[in-house]
């Protein structure tokens, strides 16, 4: 497409340094009218930095930004926005306690309205026209915090799209969406591009990039390493461009010789490693049910977060739990990790129900890879050794009375660093200093090191690059081969489908809407996730 359309926004030899670290190194980048450019790269490749430079959040250390071939300088994101550069952030910048209309007003042009009044009606009217054109129904007066993620994203798009927005940047917009919401977003993006707006689409996901974009630019370590027209590309070419020939993406999880990863499951008699019976969880606090009615295909708010959820997982099985975010996954994970006591129902590990606390669950053989590695997975400023010690600090093997055997704990951590190929620092490094992928390796090392009988993995690859994703998937497969019962709760359907052994349960509104084989069609999954109970679903007990 480049050359065919007029270039709207371009970066010429943009360099951005942070002290001695060069995040962007003489990067050239351009987006034309109506063009969809995908920006691809591993974590830390410089994608966000480049977009922050182009949207006025960061000033370049060197190089120029051109709009319509004329050099420009953005003083702030607001300045960039007023010149037609909008950005839809991965982590929404909406104020959850304000209504949709109020959120739109927040970023609306300051000049609208008088000195003392807000032009809320005008702002709302513009947004409604825009929403109408895109075919959206938005509950304008609802608090944004109560909206489903997909609708929140639409509000975010409306916020970015004001006046004459000519270039719209999407920072990993599909990370939070369900399989049914993603095509809707793509339709929106295509419509915006048809209106002549330039689109920059940041993603890790190769299939999305191939499906949506006209042109692909690949960043690696701050440099543009590849540019190509999408129609000439396939996944293999892109993956190679992204991680490079010398990449360690192919590093598989290998136990060093002489070290067995896990002991065989102690008791083959306990056939069901995990048995969940009629678990019900009610939402704490006032019920917000019925407050919002919004876009199709999204979950309503739930009076009951989990409603009589029952399933069992056998040793050596990966049991997938699919569903759109917010349908009870969080509560289910909390119950399965011993963090939350269900209103009713039981969780049994190898036939025994442990007392409801995380330490008891861990000692019963439950290992957790939590959804939020920064808030739950890791104690961020602490060192790598201390973080892996969290899995065993209460074991008599590592303490004498009240004193911890730090030397032994550090030796263990050192062994885990080697076994799980954790890079970026030794055992005394703060985990803050590690990359996202290596942080997740620390979480996984802690979870898998103790020969767990049951593994609860929640969105274990969210935000990771392809190399790290392959690593995590291999780790889970290996744990399965060693006899662990793995519960994989993920909103990433392709991940669920490729990893699940036999069965995938779909959560909708706190209930299991159906249990199907992993190779069921995407339509089947889409319908179940949307709350349709399929009678003819190929149910697998």
């Amino acid at each position, binding site marked *: 497409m480049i050359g065919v359309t007029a270039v709207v926004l371009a970066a010429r030899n943009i360099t951005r340094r942070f002290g001695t670290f060069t995040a962007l190194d003489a990067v050239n980048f351009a987006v034309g009218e109506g063009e969809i450019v995908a920006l691809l790269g591993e974590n830390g490749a410089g994608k966000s930095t480049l977009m922050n430079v182009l949207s006025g959040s960061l000033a370049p250390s060197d190089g120029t930004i051109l709009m319509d071939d004329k050099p420009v300088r953005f003083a702030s994101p607001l300045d960039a926005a007023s010149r037609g550069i909008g950005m839809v952030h991965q982590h929404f910048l909406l104020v959850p306690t304000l209504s949709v209309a109020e959120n739109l007003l927040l*970023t609306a042009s300051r000049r609208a309205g008088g000195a003392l009044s807000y032009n809320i009606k005008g702002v709302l009217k513009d947004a409604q026209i825009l929403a109408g054109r895109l075919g959206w129904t938005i509950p304008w007066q609802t608090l944004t915090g109560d909206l489903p993620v997909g609708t929140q994203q639409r509000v975010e798009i409306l916020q970015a799209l004001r006046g004459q927005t000519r270039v719209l940047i999407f920072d990993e917009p599909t990370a939070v969406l369900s399989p049914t919401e993603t095509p809707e977003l793509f339709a929106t993006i295509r419509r915006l591009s048809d209106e002549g707006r330039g689109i920059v689409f940041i993603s890790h996901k190769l299939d999305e990039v191939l499906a949506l974009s006209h042109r692909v630019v690949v960043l690696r370590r701050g440099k543009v390493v590849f540019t190509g027209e999408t129609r000439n590309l396939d996944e293999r070419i892109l993956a190679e461009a992204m991680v490079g020939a010398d990449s360690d993406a192919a590093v598989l999880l290998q136990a060093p010789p002489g070290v067995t990863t896990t002991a065989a499951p102690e008791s083959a008699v306990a056939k069901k490693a995990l048995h969940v019976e009629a678990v019900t969880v009610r939402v704490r606090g006032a019920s917000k049910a019925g407050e919002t009615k919004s876009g199709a295909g999204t979950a309503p708010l739930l009076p009951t977060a989990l409603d009589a959820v029952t399933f069992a997982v056998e040793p050596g099985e990966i049991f997938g739990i699919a569903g759109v975010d917010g349908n009870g996954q969080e509560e289910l994970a909390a119950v399965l990790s011993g963090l939350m006591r269900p209103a009713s129902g039981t969780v049994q590990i190898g036939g025994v129900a442990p007392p409801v606390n995380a330490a008891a669950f861990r000692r019963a053989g439950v290992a957790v890879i939590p959804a939020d590695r920064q808030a739950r997975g890791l*104690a961020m400023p602490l060192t790598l050794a201390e973080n892996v010690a969290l899995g065993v600090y209460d074991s008599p093997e590592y303490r004498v009375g009240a004193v911890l055997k*730090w030397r032994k704990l550090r030796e263990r951590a050192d062994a885990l660093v080697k076994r799980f190929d954790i890079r970026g620092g030794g055992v005394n490094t703060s985990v803050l200093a590690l990359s996202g992928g290596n942080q997740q390796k620390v979480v996984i090392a802690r979870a898998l090191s103790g020969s767990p009988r049951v593994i609860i993995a929640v969105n274990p690859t969210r935000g990771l690059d392809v190399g790290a994703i392959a690593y995590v998937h291999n780790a889970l497969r290996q744990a399965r081969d060693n006899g662990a019962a793995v519960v994989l709760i993920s909103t990433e359907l392709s991940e669920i489908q490729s990893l699940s052994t036999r069965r995938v349960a779909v959560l909708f509104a706190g209930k299991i809407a159906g249990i199907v084989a992993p190779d069921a069609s995407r339509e089947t999954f889409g319908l179940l996730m949307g709350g349709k109970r399929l009678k003819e679903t190929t149910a697998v007990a």
Partner: protein
Amino acid sequence: MPKPVRDALLLLLCLAVGVGLIAALVAGAGASPVAVAAALAKGAFGSRYNFGETLIQATPLVLTGLAVAVSFQCRLFNIGAEGQLLLGAMAAVAVGTSESVPPNAKLVLCLLAGAGAGAAWAGIAALLRVYRGVQEVLSTLLLNFVAVQLLAYAVRAPLQEARHELIQSDKIAIPARLVLLQPATLDLPATRLHAGVFLALLAALFVWVFLRYTVGGFALRTVGAGAGAAELAGIPVRQTIVKTFLLSGALAGLAGAVQVCGVTYFLGDRYSPGYGYTAIAVALLAGNKPGWIIVSALFFGALTAGSAGVQTAGVSQVLIQVMQAVVLLAVLAAGYLREKSPTNTGEAVAP
């Protein structure tokens, strides 16, 4: 350049800028910076007696500094060391002046009562935080004011001296006092230095070992680093918070008891010159590390002990407070610059 070296140079640079600022201020006030520095050094270290005074000032600062640091390491902002110290002092006086306590147990009981009272005072904030979600920054600060009033009441009624004339307590019995380390001899005059200085060092050692090597200390630091991760690891978060408050309050309360048993022997209205507040600066300067708290308490102690001297060099004692503030700001600036140093690739910034 290796990172530790760079960090150290950065700190030195910031301190140099701070010293330069102070020198400029002194020169601006018409005095000689060199003379002021000399007077300060002489006041703090110039004689056996003066050095003793420095150590006397540093002792409660070590204890309260540890109290603050312990809570900060658990990401609890106990800024109530002042109130906890006052409660500790009151408890020590109550036990020390009581007739019913056997003499040979008096000192130990005084100190224990001080620690216990401080812990109880901090415990109020702990319970408010854990059960009612009251921010400890607020509750501990407000409890300081309550403690001040409680002290004002105590020295006018229940703890007032026997003749009920002066607004102060009786002196505690001699067996309840900490021994003086350097009583007068034939050729040397006495200093006021007392055995409490060893208690402070022991407390620092204890806190260091506790935080670094014990399960409890690990739990405390993990809750401070990430309560979510601690919870998932099965660490009882609320219990850890309460225990941390109790330890913190006990250390501050002990400081009050040590002041009573080692320095003043009695209690008056407006008892503490703000050790509990200076403690926050002591802990910040030391990066909440027990070993460095000894150093930073010595520094603040020397400034206080030497402050009388600077007047002879022609500037007001208030200069000492300015110096404390400038040094603290210099250290904070170094910390800020270190944090800002280039490691991340620039997070998205909100428009």
